């Protein structure tokens, strides 16, 4: 409200200057509401001079004069009522302006008006006091703004306090506030849940009631000794004590805060029971893993995403030859040297692809000392919990030994053990390649076949060891006469061969002659004896026109024969005539050999046991086998000469020789009381030979053979091709008591139909079905089928080619009666005395 309230008299009495300096607007209206007084303040803020308004009503001068002011003037003039028009409700009752600014007109001036009835010399009127409300309004705005901000701060603070309390009440960790004395002043719900206390049970109590000794004393001492100069920060693993007395592992953190002048302590307790158990389990697992990694023979290296080594086990350290400190943190490709055909190390390939990478064995690790090892590498990516690749695990396996073994086996498969030369199989492979090269490139090569002369003399005189040594020494001589690019092989026995690579006939002949002369000049010494041997060499050129390998081989072989045929110790160059000569000589060769063997009694009887596997009471059988003894004393299996024998109709003679020799042996060496069956092979020619039948019957009688101890084996093919003779033969001998077995049964085309007409006692199941019956279901089914048919026809079954216990077991399961094969017993010479292999 205005500070000065002049009365009308004062207004009259005082000079205008005073009225003008009162700091408020003064307007005096007469009874007709006409202006009688308009002070300077009004002039300044209305823009109207006293002269402009004097004698006029305010409504005449101000078109928009508000009704409240007019009402107030009326109330004053008519009823003598005083009125107040506040600036808050009206703002600008009169159009007044703030003239403190330079701009024309200025801003509207907020003001209050007090209207008071007055009496001037008995004349009623009214006085308007107008006061500037700007400052009051500004003050009010300031207060309200400040209050608003304050209330906002308070509200925010309250909100934060609420949020904090909510957090503290609901956090998993227990939160307890202690006062400066170490007494509990706040015990949030989280702590209540953890310890089982209500807050009222603990408020004011020392924190020690939540911790067992000595942790409680330690915390209390710490608080009591806190001088408040520095912030307290304490973290320790302790044991917590619940209301029920249960102890638990906890992590305790104490920090101090200053609340005004007062110090408080925030204690946070985390139950780490689960974490502890987890850490222990993790530790055990880690230890187990580390022990395992330390013990395994394979090297294990782990790397990070860029290939830096993060772990290496003892086996890997041993492989690489480095210390752990030399490798950890280093990039694997910078410290470990591995030679490989792969462009990228498996570690980096697997990190890049995110998949396991397995390098083919054959990489070479060069350790710190420079030693080389053949290794096998497998790299597996390592992933984090979200599946991102974070590195790799590399497994290194030293496969040097197996590599060497593999190499050795590979060498053994391609080389002759005795001489170290290439063997027949490898030689043929290389010859094939040379022939292809000759065809493709038009090159010329030479193939030499070499056969030693008089080698048998050394073998027969000094034994096989001398023969072997001779071969070794001759191999060295051959090696010295050829180039590195040439191939030298031992084909077998005393046969050798050479491929002279890219060599014309002339030089090839020279090489062959050199070898011949070297062998001729060579003297082999063995145990005070000296021997001279020779060599026959056949040469054939290999060029673009050469036929296939077999033909080339045959040609060289023929040339070698030709050299021998011409007198030995010479070199013969192949000509087309050589093949025919050789063939004829080959066949005639066997005819003569067999004849000579028969004449010279150079056959031997061998036997192989046939054991009963279904019924122990069955007698043991012995299959009688024939071997020819060559001029050199070597045993020649029947496969080498039987074909020729059959061709030249010599089988009957051979079969008769076997029967005669066996019966002689039985008579001389076998106890007739001993149960046994001797199985003798008969050829188809023998079945058709009446004279042989007659002779056999004679021999049985002459040697007093128990006919039921004799079983003749005839092949299914031989029987069918001579069926009527076979039936006659069998009937005649069966009458004497002999038995018959049908050999290689199952391989013929119409086996079962002829069984009814051939009165046999045994079926020998073709070995081709037996040897694979464990792995092959079809073979097993065949064996079973043959045995079943045999059983139905009351025939006993014999399985051939029983090579191991698994086959034997399978045969027993099927109920097969007898088994024969290398897995039972190998063939051996019929002993001079009568003791044969015992029953197994």
């Amino acid at each position, binding site marked *: 409200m205005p500070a000065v309230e002049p009365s009308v008299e004062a207004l009259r009495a005082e000079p205008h200057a005073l009225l003008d300096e009162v700091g408020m607007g003064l307007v005096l209206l007469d009874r007709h509401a006409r202006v009688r007084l308009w002070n300077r303040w009004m002039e300044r803020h209305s823009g109207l001079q006293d002269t402009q308004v004097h004698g006029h009503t305010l409504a005449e001068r101000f078109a928009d004069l508000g009704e409240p002011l007019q009402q107030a003037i009326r109330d004053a003039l008519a009823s003598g009522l005083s009125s107040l028009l506040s*600036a808050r409700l009206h703002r600008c009752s009169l159009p007044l302006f703030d003239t403190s600014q330079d701009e024309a007109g200025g801003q509207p001036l907020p003001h209050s008006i007090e209207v008071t009835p007055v009496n001037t010399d008995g004349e009623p009127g009214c006085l308007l006091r107008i006061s500037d409300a700007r400052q009051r309004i500004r003050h009010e705005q300031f207060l309200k703004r400040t209050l608003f901000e304050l209330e906002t701060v308070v509200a925010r603070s309250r909100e934060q306090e609420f949020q904090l309390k909510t957090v503290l009440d609901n956090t998993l960790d227990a939160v307890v506030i202690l006062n400066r004395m170490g007494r509990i002043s706040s015990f949030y719900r989280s702590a209540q849940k953890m310890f089982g206390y209500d807050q009222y049970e603990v408020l004011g109590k020392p924190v020690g009631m939540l911790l067992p000794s000595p942790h409680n004393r330690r915390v209390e001492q710490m608080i009591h000794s806190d001088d408040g100069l520095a912030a307290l920060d304490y973290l320790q693993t302790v044991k917590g004590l619940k209301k029920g007395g249960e102890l638990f592992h906890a992590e305790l953190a104490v920090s101090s805060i200053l609340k005004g002048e007062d110090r408080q302590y925030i204690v946070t307790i985390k139950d780490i029971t689960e974490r502890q158990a987890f850490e222990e389990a993790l530790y055990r697992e880690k230890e187990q893993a580390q022990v395992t990694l330390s013990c395994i023979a394979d090297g294990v290296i782990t790397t990070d995403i860029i290939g830096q080594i993060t772990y290496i086990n003892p086996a890997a350290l041993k492989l690489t030859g480095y210390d752990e400190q030399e490798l950890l943190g280093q990039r694997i490709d910078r410290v470990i040297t591995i030679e490989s055909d792969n462009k990228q190390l498996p570690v980096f390939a697997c990190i890049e692809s995110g998949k396991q990478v397995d390098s083919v064995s054959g990489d070479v690790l060069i350790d710190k000392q420079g030693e080389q090892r053949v290794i096998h590498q497998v790299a597996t990516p390592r992933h984090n919990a979200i599946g991102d690749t974070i590195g790799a695990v590399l497994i290194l396996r030293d496969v040097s030994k197996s590599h060497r073994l593999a190499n050795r086996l590979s060498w053994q498969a391609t080389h002759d053990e005795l001489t170290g030369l290439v063997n027949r199989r490898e030689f043929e492979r290389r010859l094939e390649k040379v022939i292809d090269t000759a065809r493709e490139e038009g090159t010329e090569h030479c193939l030499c076949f070499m056969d030693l002369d008089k080698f048998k003399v050394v073998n027969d005189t000094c034994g096989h060891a001398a023969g072997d040594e001779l071969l070794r020494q001759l191999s060295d001589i051959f090696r010295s006469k050829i180039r590195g690019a040439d191939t030298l092989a031992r084909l077998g026995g005393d046969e050798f061969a050479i491929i002279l690579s890219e060599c014309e006939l002339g030089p090839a002949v020279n090489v062959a002659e050199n070898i011949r002369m070297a062998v001729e000049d060579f003297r082999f010494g063995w145990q005070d004896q000296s021997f001279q041997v020779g060599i026959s060499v056949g040469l054939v050129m290999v060029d673009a026109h050469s036929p296939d390998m077999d033909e080339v081989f045959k040609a060289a072989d023929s040339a070698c024969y030709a050299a021998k045929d011409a007198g030995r110790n010479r070199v013969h160059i192949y000509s087309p005539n050589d093949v025919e000569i050789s063939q004829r000589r080959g066949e005639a060769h066997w005819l003569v050999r067999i004849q000579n063997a028969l004449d010279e009694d150079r056959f031997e009887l061998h036997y192989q046991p046939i054991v009963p596997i279904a019924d122990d009471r069955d007698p043991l059988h012995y299959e009688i086998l024939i071997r020819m003894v060559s001029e050199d004393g070597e045993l020649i299996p029947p496969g080498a000469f039987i074909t020729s024998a059959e061709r030249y109709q010599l089988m009957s003679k051979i079969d008769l020789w076997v029967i005669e020799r066996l019966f002689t042996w039985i008579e001389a060496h076998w106890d007739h009381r001993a149960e046994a069956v001797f199985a003798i092979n008969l050829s188809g020619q023998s079945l058709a030979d009446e004279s042989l039948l007659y002779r056999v019957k004679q021999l049985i009688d002459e040697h007093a053979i128990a006919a039921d101890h004799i079983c003749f084996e005839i092949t299914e093919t031989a029987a069918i091709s001579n069926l009527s003779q076979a039936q006659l033969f069998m009937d005649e001998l069966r009458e004497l008591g002999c038995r018959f077995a049908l050999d290689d049964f199952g391989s013929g085309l119409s086996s079962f139909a002829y069984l009814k007409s051939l009165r046999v006692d045994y079926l020998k199941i073709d070995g081709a079905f037996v040897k694979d019956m464990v792995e092959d279901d079809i073979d097993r089914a065949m064996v079973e089928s043959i045995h079943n048919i045999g059983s139905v026809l009351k025939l006993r079954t014999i399985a051939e080619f029983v090579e191991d216990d698994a086959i034997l077991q399978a045969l027993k399961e099927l109920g097969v009666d007898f088994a024969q094969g290398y897995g039972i017993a190998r063939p051996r010479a019929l002993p001079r005395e009568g003791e044969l292999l015992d029953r197994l």
Partner: protein
Amino acid sequence: MSSPTATPDREHLFQQVTQLALSEAGALLSASVPGEAGFHLQGCRHGDWDSLFDTLPAEHDLLCVAQSLRPAERGTMLWFCTEGDARDLLHHLLGEEIRLEVLTEMEEEALTEIGNRIINRCLEHHGQLTTGIDGAAPPRLWRERPGALSTALPRPADSSLATLAELRIEHSGRGDRAWLLWCGAPWQAIKTPAVHGRVS
């Protein structure tokens, strides 16, 4: 309580005129401010100055707009309400969002004007029915407990007769209390029933 001289007819007339004045005051106020409020007469009580003050709620501060009447023997006319109700009324009328715990100077001035309007309208209308009231001095605002207010306000010479009218202020869906207090017996000056067709 009725004065021995306040007949039912005069009482009834008095109340009607008072209500009329209150309605006009409310209408005039609404023309100036964003909010609206209605003032309604609830009832009248007569007695001496102090006893009437004793009927007011003693636990709150009252904000009182007082105008001395002319001639002085006509006493003082008061309009008052509790401070809390006064704040609510003001903030509703002014459309305010930010409210302080106490009224600012400007708000006090506004409240003074509200009381002044009500008093002036009552005086104006009563003046048509009565004689002897020449006018009223400018309004003044007081803040006191009722007991202190009765002694702080300028008391007329004869305070044995006074009339306390209880009002209800309706705004914002609520009804707050206010009072009008005359010192003196305004109904005494009510003209004969001839004005209203009745014999006094």
